[in-house]
């Protein structure tokens, strides 16, 4: 969902550069409180892994592909603040080194994937985790469901931007239906990859996983 230059007009793109800068600025502050010497390397590895998996487009329906965004994955592994930063680093690398995602559209893409997708995914993760039993497989299941929702959430972000500042003159409602429809399907792939990855990390280094540590903290408080 890397937006090329030209889809959205310059004023709207500029406005979203501002909004994204505010969001990333807040994340810079927030991540300082959530990251420490022990978890910082995981935030780095998360960015690396997301970069790699974003190269792996999988077929969705005839003639269409999708790839992982990784927003919910990152939020569960390293917390939402660091997740916003990790996704932003990946998007910057892709735009400047690999010509993937327009430079003037960077604010739009960062807003959709580093901010909306991360925070919607994290919110869904917290809600689902609350209803499920407190164990590791619940964390993986909650992460999967969060991932499934986080992809159409990012698509919704694009739709808002399209409604505000599309340079084309095509129907807003047609764009809405197509964007959400296809990204619900891509979300299934996102859910599978996220679930498997979170399970793998929980199996080897659960002590590093943000979405699991919090779980244990809550339990400790209850036990006291």
């Amino acid at each position, binding site marked *: 969902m890397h937006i090329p*230059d030209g889809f959205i007009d310059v004023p709207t793109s500029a406005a979203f550069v501002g909004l994204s800068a505010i969001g990333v600025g807040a994340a810079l502050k927030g991540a300082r409180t959530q990251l420490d010497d022990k978890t910082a390397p995981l935030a*780095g590895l998360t960015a690396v892994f997301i*970069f790699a998996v974003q190269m*792996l*487009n999988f077929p969705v329906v005839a003639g*269409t592909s999708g790839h992982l965004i990784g927003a919910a994955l990152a939020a569960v592994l390293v917390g939402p603040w660091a997740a916003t930063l990790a996704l932003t680093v*990946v998007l910057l690398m*892709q735009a400047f080194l*690999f010509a993937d995602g*327009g430079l003037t559209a960077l604010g739009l893409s960062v807003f959709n994937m580093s901010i909306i997708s991360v925070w919607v995914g994290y919110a869904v993760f917290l809600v689902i985790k609350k209803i499920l039993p407190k164990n590791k497989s619940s964390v993986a299941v909650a992460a999967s469901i969060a991932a499934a929702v986080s992809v159409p959430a990012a698509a919704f972000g694009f739709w808002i931007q399209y409604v505000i500042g599309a340079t084309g003159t095509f129907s807003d409602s047609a764009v809405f239906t197509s964007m959400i429809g296809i990204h619900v399907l891509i979300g299934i792939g996102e859910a599978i990859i996220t679930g498997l990855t979170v399970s793998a990390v929980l199996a080897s280094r659960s002590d590093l996983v943000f979405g699991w540590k919090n779980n244990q903290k809550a339990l400790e408080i209850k036990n006291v």
Partner: protein
Amino acid sequence: MSKNRKFYIGGFIVSLFLAGIVSFYASSSPDGLEKVAEDIGFIETAKDHTYADGALADYGVKGIENERASVGVAGVIGVIGTAVVAGVFFKIIARKPEKTKR
């Protein structure tokens, strides 16, 4: 090798493998947004990327004719580049200022 080291080296190798080898087998169909733009028609409004002629544009290394090698090398460069940038960046973020320690 410590458990910690093993985990990070393992994760890095998996990422190198995915970006360097598996990426060749990725679908080349347009992604969701591109497909919607084609179907509805606003793909026409897209402009060429500023760095469309860059050395690594579209995940291929300029000058490497073999497609498998081209995307693989681009992927490996991307993984190492992201590791360096993100590694340094998060290390700085996680560093606690001296003042707050007191």
